[in-house]
Structure formats: structure tokens, C-alpha cells
């Protein structure tokens, strides 16, 4: 019988608790045990960035993180971006700039972009490229994504 460990953490501002199986990664934990389906499974090897979530404000690859390692920590996913029916400025900008085609990389791109803008509200184009350097997109050719992140940065008012 596999051991199951209780994990309490904050998900998008709400206290959450669930049981993680031994060796379960954070991505499987969020999707299967917590029910947040927004982080995507791409490669399971740290090569694509589709599973990117924020842990204590910094981007992490949830497929390579042990679920129990988020005990007591703060996790953010795309599910927490919109405020009710109002999309986050990054989501608005992604729609307006056609930054999503198949959409599979989008959750990872959005979280990588959020990590950047939270620390660097007015990034340069090079800083945007650097920030999404670990996220693969096979549809857009990246330019619309970069444009969208820059547009969101220009639109955002200070929190």
C-alpha cells in the first residue's frame, strides 16, 4: 500500500489540503488530487514549460517538483488569474495579439509571464524572451506571445 501524505498549502489565495502519493509530482497532485486542471502535462522532463506554476511567487516546473515540497507554501496557477468574469491583463493581451493557437503552452506561458511582470513591471523585449526561454510553443513562432506580454505590461496599472 502506497503511503499517502497530507499536504496543506495555499492555492491561488485559498488554503487547501489534499493527500499526495509517495513520489507524486506537483502537476499530478494539482490535476488529480486538487482538481486544478490548468497546468498542463507536456514532456514530464522539464523541457517544455507547459506545467509552469508559481511557488512563493517564483516560476517552477510542477512536473519536476515533488508534491509534498509545497507543504506550507503558496502556489499560483492560471485558475487564479481572472477576477470573476474579468480576465487578467495578460489573458486579455494574449487574446488580442493571437498569442494562443492550439493553446497547450498558454498556461505555462501565462505563468512565466506573470512571474516576470510581478518582478519587472516594465520589461524590455529581451527580458520577455529570457522569461519565456524555458517554455516551448510549436504554433505561434513566439512573436505574438512576446508582443502580448509587452502589451500587458504597458496596460497594467500599478497594483
Amino acid at each position: 500500500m502506497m503511503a499517502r501524505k497530507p499536504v496543506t498549502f495555499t492555492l491561488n489565495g485559498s488554503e487547501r489540503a489534499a493527500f499526495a502519493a509517495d513520489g507524486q509530482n506537483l502537476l499530478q497532485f494539482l490535476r488529480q488530487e486538487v482538481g486544478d486542471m490548468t497546468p498542463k502535462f507536456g514532456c514530464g522532463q522539464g523541457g517544455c514549460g507547459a506545467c509552469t506554476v508559481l511557488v512563493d511567487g517564483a516560476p517552477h516546473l510542477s512536473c519536476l517538483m515533488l508534491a509534498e515540497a509545497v507543504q506550507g507554501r503558496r502556489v499560483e496557477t492560471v485558475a487564479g488569474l481572472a477576477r470573476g468574469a474579468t480576465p487578467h491583463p495578460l489573458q486579455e493581451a494574449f487574446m488580442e495579439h493571437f498569442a494562443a493557437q492550439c493553446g497547450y503552452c498558454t498556461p505555462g506561458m501565462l505563468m512565466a509571464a506573470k512571474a516576470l511582470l510581478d518582478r519587472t513591471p516594465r520589461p524590455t523585449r529581451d527580458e520577455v524572451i529570457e522569461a519565456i526561454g524555458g517554455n516551448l510553443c510549436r504554433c505561434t513562432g513566439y512573436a505574438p506571445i512576446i508582443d502580448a506580454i509587452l502589451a500587458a505590461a504597458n496596460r497594467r496599472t500599478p497594483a
Partner: protein
Amino acid sequence: MSVTVETCATAAEAARALGQGAQYLGGGTIVMRRVNAGDQHLSRLVRSTDPGLRAIRSTSQGVSLGAGVTMAQIMAHPDLGFLAPAARAVGGPALREMATVGGNLFARAPYGDLAVLLLALGAQAVMSDGGSPRPLEELWRGGRSGLVLSLEVPRPREARATGYLKVARVHPVGTPVISLAAYLPREGGRIRGARIAMTGMGATPRRATAAERVLEGAALDAASIARAAAVAAEGLEPLDDALATAWYRREVAGVHLSRLLEGLERG
């Protein structure tokens, strides 16, 4: 999934819990890949929440890096500018929040973008089994036992003596064909204590001893750079993998070494 995970409050407990086929789990960027791939050789993982493993301390000689210090921590630290180019060369921003100093030492070749600079600087590993710190080459030669707790990294005597170059086919995030690091301190215009290291030129990061011998006692100029480049791959065993053949790596090692050294010469 039939793996069990043991979490230890201290590094010493974790070191004791290792053995009998247990694998230490640090940042996860190496071991969790194996877990996700269903590697049947993994049955017990041991990890530690010891804050000492994430500590960065200044020492009389340089800096002590806990084995669990991440690439992102190095990049953010005001006193670690001399390591930052190599830390930045590892993966993308999310990976760098997770990837650790200790893990990079054991990353499968040609990975080891930070380890190659640590080797060039003469860093030594402090092990859980006590004893004096061990040179990295000794650690890699095998028979490694216990857990790496921290690394003692000598601070370069002059910032300009250190050079780093990663050669990858994909940018900004790509596996290195070769990564190179050089530490060439100079006294009276002459190189004293040359150390050059490369990844992709062996199963672990390796020192380019032939090139070091050429540079020792010489001035860093076009002539000495050309002589060092000519022997860059001598005595090394370039990897043959999907990124490049051994032949290619042997051919280009000197080209990239000369580019790195030219950068150092310009200052």
C-alpha cells in the same frame, strides 16, 4: 509508481538514510525526470529540508555554497557575480529556481554548465562523511560515498581572470555542445595557475590540461591563445551524442577556447 520518499529534517539524517539503493532528491530536475519516466531502479528517495543546504556564506577564501543552493539564488546574490554567467546558462527561469549546485555536479554530460566553472575555479566538495573537502575531480572519479553538503568555492583574485562560454545549438535554452570555463590569474602579465575546464569532452567536466600547460607562465596574447587552441582537446574524450559527434567536438573545442580566451584578453 512504487517509489517511497523519506524527508529528513537535517542533512546528517539524510546522509545516514542514504545507501541500500536510495537516491538523494535535491531540486528534482534530474531525479524527478527519472521518477516521471517510471525508472524501475528508483525505489527509495531521500530528501532534506535542512535550511543549511540552501545557505550561502562568505569565507576567508571565497564562498561556501550549500548543495541545495539554486541557480536563481546564485544569480540574485550580490557577491556571486563571478558564478552568475554559468548559473544563467542552466535551463530557463523556472528550472533555475529548482536546479541546485549539488545536482549540477552530477548532471549527465554534457550538462554541468555550473560544474564546469566550479572545476575551473578549483571548488571543493564538503561531504557528509567528514574529512577534508574533496576536489571535484576526485568526487567524479568514483567511489563517491555520502552526501555533498556544500561547496567551498575560491573567489577569483581578479574578476577579469574568469571566463565562461556555453556553446549550444538552441537559444536561449539549450543543451551544451560544449561549455568552457577558464580561470587565468596573472602576475606581472604572466599567467600563474591556469585552469581550463570543459563539458562535452568526457563523461564529467574535464580540465584541458594540455592547454593549461601551454598557457602557464605565458602572456595571454594571440600567439599563446593559438597554441592553447591547438591542443584544446588533447587527452580528452569528446562525447558522441545526438547534439554532436565526438569528431565535431574535437574539431571545434579549440575554436571555442580561442574565442573564450580572446574575450579574456580584451578584458
